[in-house]
């Protein structure tokens, strides 16, 4: 399935989206023993600084994902605003009370579908966060404010934005149709480059790491295999396998000031296998069914979380902290 609102230069192709695409799934009436739920990753091209246009595109995609049977649709980092905002950040900022956010809440209720969307979130103290919302049934269930704001190379986030200070897991209601429980956490783009982020979520028992991203392609002269995409390939597969969790990586599409975002949105299963992927940078919506039973199989085969020595980790962390305090 492909987004109808496609931008120039990013030519969606029907056949380029993998088989994972769901066509007209049957409504689930009884609990499914596999605990399957369809997730949709919207590899989207936001218009830079135009929240109105982007909200409208979100509503179209949310409805399409719901019609495709998805229980969750994930949009990329800063999907409501675009990425290289610079001085626009305060101008496009929203609060949880903004009508644009309420439009997404209404869409989630109307479509009976959970939504992860990215925005500049303004606090009461007028700080501006790069945030992603988890929305379900007309409510904001969870807010993640990006902790690691890259400020090097082509990135300048700390100039414009405030950093979040927590990684919290939450109960994601996406299993409500199958009466299965899913614990989820969100890491935004650069958060993924710090393994402690994923480790903290794993310690809180997540089954699903959702990673909205706005990753610009660079180091591309020798092809994607040695560029940024290869780093994300390694990270997403490694975290999914070592933390025996599903990982949904949703990157964006399009160009901003000549910088191209490389797409490659993917679902990685708890064994570390890439089970669905958009093969390129075009706009697309990727559908894939994730299953509780796959988590169970992976954790039977590799009981890494059971064996995790949090006591050792805590003791060593305390020792380092004391030494640091003593100077």
């Amino acid at each position, binding site marked *: 399935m492909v987004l109808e609102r496609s931008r120039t230069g990013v030519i969606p192709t029907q056949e380029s989206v993998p088989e994972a695409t769901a066509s007209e799934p049957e409504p689930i009436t009884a609990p499914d023993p596999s605990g399957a739920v369809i997730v949709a990753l919207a590899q989207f091209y936001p218009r830079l600084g135009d929240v109105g246009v982007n909200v409208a595109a979100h509503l179209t995609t949310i409805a399409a994902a719901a019609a495709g049977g998805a229980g969750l649709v994930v949009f990329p980092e800063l999907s409501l605003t675009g990425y290289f905002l610079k001085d626009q950040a305060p101008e496009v900022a929203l609060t949880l009370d903004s009508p644009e956010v309420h439009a997404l809440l209404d869409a989630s209720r109307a479509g009976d579908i959970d939504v992860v969307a990215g925005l500049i979130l303004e606090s009461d103290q007028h700080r501006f966060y790069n945030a992603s919302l988890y929305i379900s049934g007309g409510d904001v269930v969870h807010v993640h404010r990006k902790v690691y704001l890259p400020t090097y190379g082509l990135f300048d986030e700390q100039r414009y934005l405030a950093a979040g200070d927590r990684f919290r897991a939450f109960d994601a209601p996406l299993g409500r149709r199958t009466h299965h429980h899913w614990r989820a956490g969100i890491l935004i783009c650069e958060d993924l480059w710090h393994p402690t982020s994923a480790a903290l979520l794993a310690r809180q028992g997540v089954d699903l790491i959702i990673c909205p991203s706005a990753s610009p392609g660079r180091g591309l*002269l020798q092809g994607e295999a040695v560029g940024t995409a290869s780093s994300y390939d390694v990270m997403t597969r490694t975290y999914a396998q070592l933390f025996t969790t599903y990982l949904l990586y949703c990157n964006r599409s399009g160009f901003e000031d000549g910088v*191209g975002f490389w797409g490659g949105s993917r679902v990685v299963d708890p064994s570390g296998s890439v089970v669905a992927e958009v093969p390129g940078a075009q706009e697309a919506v990727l559908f894939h069914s994730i299953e509780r039973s796959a988590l169970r199989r992976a954790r039977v085969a590799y009981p890494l979380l059971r064996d995790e020595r949090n006591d050792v980790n805590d003791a060593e962390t305390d020792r380092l902290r004391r030494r640091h305090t003593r100077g």
Partner: protein
Amino acid sequence: MSTTPRPIDSDADTLAVDAAFVIERLRGFIADGVRKVGFERVIVGLSGGVDSSLVTALAVSSLGADNVVAVFMPYRSSDPQSQIDALAVCDSLGIAAKVVDITPQVDAYFERFPDADRTRRGNKMARERMSILYDHSMAERALVLGTSNKTELLLGYGTLFGDMASALNPIGDLYKTQVYALARALELPHSVLTKPPSADLWVGQSDEDELGMRYAVVDSVLNLLVDERRSRAEVIALGFDPGDVDAIVARVRGSQYKRRPPVIAKLSNRTIDREFRYPRDWGR
């Protein structure tokens, strides 16, 4: 001045290009950059050299032959081979070249300043071509594509507000040797790929003679200094001539002004580009 450095494997690797991948990316860059500002067409000053020929070929590949205007702008002293090559490029791409001879306007001007040296004359020719290109840009509703490569931009080997002027530059992050790799992949005419690089601003002009170095050396040194952030000492330790390295460093520093917008006197609290920072694609 230049000695041939010993072959350096790592260096050869880092200048290598996955041509098919990069071409695909540049096709997307052109289509996106043109259409998001409300245009459908582009215009290129085609000299018959490898840079402008590559840009023309990329544009045709991205937008289709109907949406690419190539303008060939010879001066009376231009090498006749340039026109042969430019027309061969157009033929191979299925587009027609517009030919605008700049001799009358350039000669009319220098009749009033007959003592002007060849650098002044070359710069004037480059700016006349720019001026014609932007006029035709308006007439054709076509966005001007740039044809300066990374080597030229870093060395300042171009005319400010002349050949350096454009709206979108697809090849500004490609060294000259990488431009050749893409041109070969797109199968540009043989002569374009094999003749010595020249700005063709006067008879017998040659890039490598003027630079005093071969592009292979310049590109390798620039790649080490700029992309790999190696120090001068490290580059010399890899086998490059210290005189070459210093000459390149001096050129890059000396031409920094050409790569920046004009300097604005700081007075207010919010000066353009200093505190007033918006992306070029603001709202696009």
